[in-house]
């Protein structure tokens, strides 16, 4: 059921939600950008609607709630392995359509793909999603081409309409709180983007053969393998394991996992010194093909959701969408073929 609410009404809803949920939303963190006197838009717990940044795309993705950048798995004492506690509270995540689409990608890796990930699942099972409508595409967005500009599978939606807010609710348990705090009922269709400035076209006939193409060579020197594109990507899921012992007492320690990047040195290192994909261009190829080719080959749909954050963040102005659009050239160059 859809509702029109005042700001106070929305805040009353948030307040009631806060009794059972931590509410995560994109917020503007003043002075937290890398350059001085610039802001960073990141996910953080909120209590009022005024804290939510509606106007800009978040710099870092919501996925940090589901797969924290650094997550403790176990604590070790001398002879015991103790599982780290999960979050105490359920979570609500406010996010845009493209990002809600990326939840499906995270689920595919962490819940499906043969094994269920215990740590992901215990958070994921207790998360509700509130869709933030998009009136216009941001710079570098290409959600329409990736077909992620609309989504129906939200629990609720929230959008500014002039001085008021519109919410659509699809989660039965929340109906009464919205009913109580809404001004009036109405049909609410969350805004969605129908046109973007950036377009991508993923060619037919892609295969690993394109790794031989010359299109990757320019990235050998342009890319600085910092991994920002991975860390801001809402669909990147890779991690590395780390064991530590606490320095003040070598007898206890923990095992954790931290986000990993296929662009950063060390990603493929094997015992004894072997490593694969040493060139940045080949790392780029690995990342790009994962997003728009091989993930789909395994799971049936593209990994990339067209949010454009990798383009937004690259300090070397390497455009992922631009690279996708070069794939056609690469296919022709190496002689495209359709795989069985």
């Amino acid at each position, binding site marked *: 059921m859809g509702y029109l609410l005042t700001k106070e009404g929305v805040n009353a809803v948030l307040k009631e939600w806060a009794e059972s949920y931590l509410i995560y939303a994109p917020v503007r963190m003043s002075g937290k950008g890398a350059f001085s006197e610039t802001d960073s838009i990141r996910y953080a717990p909120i209590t009022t609607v005024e804290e939510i940044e509606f106007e800009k795309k978040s710099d870092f993705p919501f996925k940090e709630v589901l797969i924290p*950048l650094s997550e403790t798995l176990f604590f070790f004492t001398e002879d015991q392995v103790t599982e780290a506690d999960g979050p105490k509270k359920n979570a609500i995540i406010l996010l845009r359509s493209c990002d809600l689409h990326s939840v499906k990608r995270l689920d595919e890796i962490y819940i499906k793909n043969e094994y269920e990930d215990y740590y992901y699942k215990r958070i994921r099972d207790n998360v509700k999603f509130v869709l933030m409508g998009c009136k216009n595409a941001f710079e570098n967005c290409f959600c329409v081409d990736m077909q992620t500009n609309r989504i129906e599978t939200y629990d609720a939606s929230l959008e500014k309409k002039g001085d008021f807010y519109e919410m659509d609710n699809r989660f039965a348990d929340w109906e009464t709180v919205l009913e109580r705090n809404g001004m009036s009922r109405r049909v609410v269709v969350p805004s969605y983007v129908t046109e973007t400035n950036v377009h991508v076209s993923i060619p037919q006939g892609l295969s690993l053969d394109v790794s031989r193409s010359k299109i990757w060579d320019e990235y050998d020197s342009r890319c600085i393998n*910092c*991994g920002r594109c991975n860390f801001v990507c809402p669909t990147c899921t890779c991690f590395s394991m780390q064991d530590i012992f606490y320095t003040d007492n070598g007898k206890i320690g923990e095992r954790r996992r931290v986000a990993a990047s296929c662009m950063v040195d060390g990603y493929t290192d094997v015992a004894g010194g072997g490593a694969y994909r040493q060139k940045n261009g080949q790392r780029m190829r690995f990342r790009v093909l994962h997003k728009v080719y091989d993930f789909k080959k395994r799971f049936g749909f593209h990994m990339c959701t067209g949010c454009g954050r990798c383009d937004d963040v690259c300090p070397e102005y390497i455009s992922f969408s631009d690279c996708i659009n070069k794939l056609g050239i690469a296919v022709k160059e190496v002689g495209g073929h359709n795989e069985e």
Partner: protein
Amino acid sequence: MDMNTKALKKNAFRVTKQRGVTASRIRVPGGHLEAKYLSVLQEIAEKYGNGTVHITSRQGFEIPGILFENMPYVNELLQPIIQGLNINQKTPGQGYPAAGTRNVTACIGNRVCPYACYDTTAFAQRIEKVIFPNDLHFKIALTGCPNDCAKVRMHDFGIMGMTEPQYDKDRCINCEACVKACKKKSVNVLKTVNYKVERYPDRCIGCGECVLACPTGAWTRGEKKLYRLTIMGRTGKKNPRLGEDFVKWIDEAGIIKIILNTYDYVTQHIDPAAPGGKEHIGYIIDRTGFEEFRKWALRDVQLPKMAEVSTPIYWQGVKY
């Protein structure tokens, strides 16, 4: 021809090689101005000068080839620049009221440069506001970060932007980008311990390379604007030398108070027989001893808790 050269100089004109011909010196605090003022400079140069403009080593302009008799007209034309750049003035239309305290220079700062920790021009303008007009010979420069592109260590007061890096270990994934950046581009004060990063605050110079290098936003800038204040660098004949650190992690209020205190100190201690009433502060300190200077400089200064004052200070440099 009769001309009071003292008055001429104080009015920011220059006695030149050529008798009866002067040059007008235009101060641009922080070295940044609206482009519209360039056409005023052009007009002055073409109408009263020889059609050329010199960009000075202190980020001002000097318009040469002006006849003494045209100074009043030049001053009138200068009025929109003096006003537009918010220069303290006694009588509108009569040009600059002093020239002893030099233009406050600055690097491009954080309006443009990714490394800069603050808006150098804006800070320069605030300093200009409290120290000008003044006949005493002070040279002050500001630079956005420890790269010191503005060469502030060659000034009486050098102000270098610093950032106190803030570390969120929960966002750190141990990619070591910061450790490498600090080692290769800065002073190597970051170390990996247990897959997280430790910083040696004593040796950290606050350049912000770690913040710039961090791909996950684990490193961010401190909220407070903090600076390194270097003092008594100088060029010149007897003993050119680089400024030494006076206070590390000082704030804006502290810097301004120290500079104002130094004006009092110089007024008290300047050699009354100094040629042209001009003596570099550094030589005064050489004479009174650092301790006397420090006493004056730090009077009523409220320093931030983390500020580190270097004392005593010994300067090096070439001695002739």
